[in-house]
């Protein structure tokens, strides 16, 4: 029994059916961790992209260093660091928040590059035309550059959303009850790992395929030349 739901071990099928609601409870946690991690990655990535674009080395350099450090170290190391080291300095976060934060930090390094590449994909001529028309830098960014960059940024961000979801099982090592951890506990208690782990794999496969299809659809629907302005 887990989360107050009992399993039926009379047959493999009955077992599978009975543990599905338990796994889905784990899936909710997986999705929550994905969502929180993604939001952190979106916001922090934007901040990092802004800092890295600064002409002041004092500002751009630490941001670059942070990006490089985060990308070149394993997520699990970062996760352990946050989980075991921060409490020593009085910062105690729930396991779930620690995990989501680790995901967000890791992926902010990637999203910051997505933003940067998206902005750089707008041709130089657009900046020059805006300057020749005397548009302010702020207006140029908001109305000329950003609307053209966004359709190129969104699909890449979508791909990272799927990646984050697939990295959530790492959180099981700090005892977050996400879907894989739930499956493992069921296995530990029933000595049947085959069914719960297969089901986790299957659920992930379905989610990933659906997400990939959604991103492809979104990509075809996004206005390639930028968000239209009348």
């Amino acid at each position, binding site marked *: 029994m887990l989360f107050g739901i009992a399993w039926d071990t009379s047959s493999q099928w009955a077992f599978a059916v009975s543990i599905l609601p338990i796994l889905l409870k784990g899936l909710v946690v997986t999705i929550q961790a994905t969502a929180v991690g993604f939001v952190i990655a979106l916001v922090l990535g934007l901040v990092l992209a802004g800092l890295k674009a600064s002409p002041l080395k004092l500002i751009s350099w630490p941001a670059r260093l942070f990006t490089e450090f985060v990308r070149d170290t394993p997520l699990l190391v970062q996760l352990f660091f946050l989980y075991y080291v921060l409490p020593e300095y009085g910062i105690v976060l729930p396991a779930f928040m620690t995990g989501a934060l680790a995901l967000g930090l890791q992926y902010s390094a990637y999203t910051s590059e997505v933003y940067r590449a998206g902005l750089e994909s707008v041709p130089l*001529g657009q900046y020059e*035309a805006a300057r*020749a028309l005397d*548009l302010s830098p702020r207006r140029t960014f908001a109305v000329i550059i950003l609307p053209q960059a966004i359709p190129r940024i969104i699909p890449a961000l979508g791909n990272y959303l799927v990646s984050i979801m697939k990295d959530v099982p790492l959180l099981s090592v700090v005892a977050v009850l996400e879907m894989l951890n739930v499956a493992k506990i069921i296995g530990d208690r029933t000595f049947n790992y085959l069914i719960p782990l297969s089901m986790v794999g299957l659920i992930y496969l379905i989610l990933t395929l659906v997400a990939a299809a959604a991103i492809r659809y979104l990509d075809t629907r996004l206005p390639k030349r930028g968000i*239209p302005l009348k």
Partner: protein
Amino acid sequence: MNDDTTTGSTAHPVPEAIIHFDRVVKRFGPVTVLDSLDFEVRKGEKVTIIGPSGSGKSTVLRILMTLETIDDGIIHVAGRPLWHERRNGELVPASESHLRNMRKEMGMVFQQFNLFPHMTVRRNVTEAPVHVLGLSRQEAHERADEYLELVGLSDQVDKFPSQLSGGQQQRVAIARALAMRPNIMLFDEPTSALDPELVGEVLNVIQRLAEEHDLTMLLVTHEMQFAKRVSDRVCFFDKGRIVEQGPPEQVFGEPREERTRDFLKNFLDTA
């Protein structure tokens, strides 16, 4: 040392010169693009710059539009230093707000049009009048329609640039620049990116502008026949200097310099 003579000679630019380059130097790395260039354009004058690629002709326009900085010398536009400003009686490098002010004198048409692809034709033309000049939407709207009619595109206002031919796009770009009511129009190879059959419609618009308006016009082009028709003066650039300049009949008809003759001969051979 050098500064004294520079400021000394530009304290009294020729009164009617709206553009005045005084010993302007521009380098890209080890390459000197403008080599101590002296150059002048009078108010209302139509000047064409011709010359081989890499001769610095586009750079002259891009410096005027403040898209490129200069390394030495001084430029005056409408009597005011472009890349410098006076502070406590001394010339210091221009601030961004000074450059913003100076840009109001000029409009530019680019080789690659550089229309905003996500904006309708009308929005392309109204964006800057509304947000830079402070016109109301209604005023900007009327002004845009006026200039779009001038370039013959009244029926395309709600389309996006991608729905237009290259020639139409370049005409929108001309209307967009004109809508800011600049005193000086800069045309940087406006037809070089166009299919041959679309060149004529753009040149016709520019020629009409030249004939009917007292705009000062500075054009970089490879269209020699067109240059002959619209220019008051043709300047032949080579290696960052003006090799020869004069009325089109003289420069094209009886070029004095060997290099001009070679360029024109090669050009006619390959054209």
